[in-house]
């Protein structure tokens, strides 16, 4: 372990106080004078053609300024996925189409003087629909007689399999070794089908955008986005408006979790402002967020694995079917990650086949959601590991230890399966998964409780475990940049494209710069995510910010350090090799003398050979070091009602060196609790016509403070040599383990194996009823 001054300290968030008092502004808190309010009309049908829209009456409605729909808005194909360019998601979306593809698809938009007037006018728009056959079952999507959801005009912008004629939004097919040999060598084959379900991100701030022209006639977009630079690029394309005339500002963002990696509203508001030359405001209601924004892609995983009696795995065959809903946003990359972030964990498997298909249906649209396919894949894999380890009578922990990837090892998957293209070879340099499992086992009392079926009344206790890895950014795709300059008092401006959506990235980037420059975080003035003012960054996704953007900040600060040394040498004629930065000064190790950074800055700015100490740096990575994590849960199953009561969940993570342990714990706990809630209560309930009937918090019932068990979190000691000060990522990984850990614990308690999420009491009860006796 290294000795750090700022890294590894639980520094308070630099924006903590103004957030706590509510003085920092989120998108809807900005007052934009004379703004029009936008309201959207949504399809009541799962699949229909729009024969005609009559907006005559609506146009006469008080306050209405304009009504937009397919008749007056240019249809430019694009994807709403806020990804790198060219986006790996198919171009299958236009602003307003003549066809609707799910209940909640947008049909028209009213711009009116007030929100109420806009909403009133919606009711007066007459739409003549020709109802088409819906497609709700992804298993039937590729059948020859299945209704076609998209036209052949849609296309993929990169060379990948995409066939709207088969409702096929993406396909991934990789194999190595000899599967038949692997099957022949197996003493035991386990073949099961797992289902993960729809979920809403539930960021407490709904998607929000405000647009207006500034004094220079440039379009300003204030948006609750995770991807400001992708917003600028996509809006420019969809609105056919020069990129140079667009400025995107990300203010404080009230959570994202992937939901705001989607560019859905910005182009609508921009279109209104550009055509009407007036400011526009578009804020989704909670119901709109549930119904019409983005979700976690439901996935069916057919997993087949073989083991020898010795416990050696002889083959793995994974067939993944991803329901992308009405549009193919993230359909390829989430699909890829169902394998790419999951299968390398078992790197010793020599015979492997991963087949993934993403299909269109007439249901809500999937998207980026924390975990991004790994959540879906690990649900299957961790249960399979539990089943297999029981069959060969090896403890789950030992079974995982026997098979998981280790330091100095690689996986063929890294190489053959990337995001939308081949992957990148990499050797794992840090992996402390054993330590993670051992800590959790001890925290939860694994040895004392596993398989003991401790019974009290109708309740039977069980413990279960799950493990996961993720990545740290997308190798050779993600890029982040930073620029810095010094001020007279020895403070620094740090401008980054990196996008703090509540994660605390502004704080940890300040810590990284402060570590290099020997200053406290309050001497680093962070400006993030303003496309006019900060350098580029792909944005907050793919667990990339700490590793990629942090790498850029470190490089940038190192350049600044050398310039500071240059000035110190000019001032003092010191030898560079004796210089260090500490305590806001340049110090001469040999003589013990020091020059305050403020003196350095004043000398450089005003005194001699004047220049601005400033630098910029960019960072990409040829690898994506995986963080590792284990979650162990303890629960009771009520055999009378089927209700699962969580007792405790212990999670340990190897995220390399934690830049800020408090923020790391916050990321892990938030992800774990979201995962627990996803496993037990969250779900989309549809009517037979595909209408979401629980699109409100009161019916969706995500966990609140009264629902959560005791939560224990631990950061294991680790150091990733390729990361900034040893750091890897941490944002997503914690959501991958709760659901399979719960499934494994339910089995441990009552011998019931649940393959389909969520584990509601009715499902558990029904499964219990099927058991004649508790035969486990």
């Amino acid at each position, binding site marked *: 372990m290294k000795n750090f001054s700022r890294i590894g300290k639980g520094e308070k*968030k630099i*924006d903590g106080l103004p957030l706590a008092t509510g*003085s920092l502004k989120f998108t809807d808190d900005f007052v934009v004078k004379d703004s029009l309010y936008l309201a959207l009309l949504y399809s009541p049908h799962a699949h229909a053609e729009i024969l005609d829209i009559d907006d005559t009456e609506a146009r006469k409605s008080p306050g209405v300024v304009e009504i937009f729909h397919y008749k007056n808005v240019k249809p430019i194909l694009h994807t709403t996925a806020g990804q790198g360019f060219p986006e790996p998601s198919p171009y299958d979306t236009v602003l307003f189409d003549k066809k609707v593809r799910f209940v909640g698809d947008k049909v028209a938009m009213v711009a009116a003087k007030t929100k109420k007037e806009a909403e009133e006018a919606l009711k007066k728009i007459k739409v003549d629909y020709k109802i088409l056959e819906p497609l709700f079952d992804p298993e039937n999507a590729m059948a020859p007689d299945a209704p076609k959801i998209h036209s052949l005009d849609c296309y993929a912008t990169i060379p990948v399999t995409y066939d709207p004629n088969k409702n096929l939004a993406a396909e991934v097919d990789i194999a190595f070794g000899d599967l038949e040999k692997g099957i022949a060598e197996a003493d035991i084959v386990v073949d099961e089908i797992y289902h993960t379900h729809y979920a809403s991100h539930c960021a*407490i701030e709904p998607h929000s955008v405000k647009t207006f022209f500034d004094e220079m006639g440039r379009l300003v977009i204030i948006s609750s986005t995770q991807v400001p630079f992708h917003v600028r690029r996509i809006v420019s394309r969809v609105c056919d408006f020069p990129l140079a005339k667009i400025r995107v500002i990300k203010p404080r963002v009230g959570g994202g979790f992937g939901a705001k990696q989607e560019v859905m509203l910005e182009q609508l508001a921009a279109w209104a402002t550009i055509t009407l030359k007036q400011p526009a405001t578009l804020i989704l209601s909670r119901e709109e967020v549930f119904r019409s924004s983005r979700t976690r892609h439901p996935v069916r995983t057919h997993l087949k694995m073989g083991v020898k009696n010795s416990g050696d795995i002889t083959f793995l065959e994974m067939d993944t079917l991803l329901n992308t809903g009405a549009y193919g946003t993230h359909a390829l990359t989430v699909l890829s990650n169902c394998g790419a972030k999951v299968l390398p964990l078992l790197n010793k498997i020599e015979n492997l086949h991963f087949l993934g298909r993403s299909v269109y249906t007439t249901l809500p649209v999937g998207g980026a959601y924390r975990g991004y396919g790994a959540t879906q894949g690990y649900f299957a894999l961790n249960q399979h590991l539990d089943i297999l380890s029981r069959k060969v009578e090896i403890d789950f922990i030992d079974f995982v230890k026997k098979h998981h990837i280790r330091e100095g090892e690689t996986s063929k998957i890294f190489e053959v399966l990337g995001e939308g293209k081949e992957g990148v070879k990499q050797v794992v340099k840090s992996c402390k998964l054993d330590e993670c499992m051992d800590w959790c086992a001890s925290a939860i009392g694994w040895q004392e409780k596993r398989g003991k079926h401790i019974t009290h009344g109708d309740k039977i206790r069980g413990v279960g475990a799950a493990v996961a890895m993720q990545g740290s950014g997308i190798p050779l795709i993600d890029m982040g940049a930073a620029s810095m300059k010094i001020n007279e008092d020895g403070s620094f401006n740090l401008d980054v494209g990196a996008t703090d959506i509540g994660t605390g990235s502004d704080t940890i980037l300040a810590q990284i710069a402060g570590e290099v420059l020997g200053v406290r975080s309050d001497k680093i003035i962070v400006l993030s995510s303003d496309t006019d003012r900060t350098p580029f960054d792909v944005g907050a996704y793919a667990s990339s910010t700490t590793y990629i953007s942090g790498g850029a900040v470190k490089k940038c600060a190192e350049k600044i350090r050398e310039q500071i040394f240059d000035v110190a040498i000019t001032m003092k004629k010191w030898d560079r090799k004796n210089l260090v930065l500490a305590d806001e000064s340049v110090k001469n190790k040999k003589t013990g003398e020091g020059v305050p950074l403020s003196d350095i800055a004043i000398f450089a700015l005003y005194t001699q050979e004047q220049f601005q100490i400033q630098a910029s740096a960019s960072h990409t990575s040829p690898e994506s070091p995986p963080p590792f994590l284990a979650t162990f849960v303890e629960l009771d199953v009520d055999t009378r009602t089927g209700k699962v009561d969580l007792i405790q969940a212990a999670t340990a993570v190897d995220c390399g060196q934690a830049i800020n342990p408090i923020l790391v714990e916050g990321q892990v706990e938030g992800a774990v*609790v979201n995962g627990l809630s996803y496993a037990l209560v969250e779900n989309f309930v549809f009517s037979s016509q595909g209408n979401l009937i629980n699109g409100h*918090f009161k019916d969706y019932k995500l966990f609140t*403070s009264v629902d959560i068990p005791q939560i224990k979190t631990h950061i294991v000691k680790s150091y990733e040599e390729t990361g900034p000060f040893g750091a890897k990522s941490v944002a997503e990984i914690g959501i991958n383990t709760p659901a399979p850990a719960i499934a494994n614990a339910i089995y441990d308690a009552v011998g019931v194996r649940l393959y389909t999420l969520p584990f509601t009491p009715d499902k558990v009860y029904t499964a219990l009823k099927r058991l004649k006796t508790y035969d486990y």
Partner: protein
Amino acid sequence: MKIECTLNGQRKTLDVSSTRRLLDILREDFHLTAVKEGCGEGECGACMVLMDGKAVNACLIPAGNLMGKEIVTPEGFKESPRGKIIEEALIEAGAVQCGFCTPGFVMAIESLLNEHPHPTEENIREGLSGNLCRCTGYQMIFKSVRLAEEKGAGLW
């Protein structure tokens, strides 16, 4: 209709429709934007304010109910000794992530400690059950209540 009430310690006469939401009055007329709208259905607590000392969801309160009431928003509470203690406790515990729900939690914690100056764990969980937070997983918010209880001993 004309409604007399107190807002953050000042007497106000509101001239508003009786059905207008307190949330809209606060955000639109007074620019008190620490009061957030997360759902508009009384489920998330992001718009919590104190009405006669009790935490309520401003999205569920029509103007007609405000006559003679004393309303305190996070803006009116933040400089008070109790406000500062709660805010500092939330920050120190790491309970502020995106911060969208935080001002509402400040109101809920004030209401909780007002009722239970030394809350049990159950009191804390119950007292915060009207506020949703998707970022933290609640642990750090629980911890912040304990910190506030300790550092603000005697204030409640």
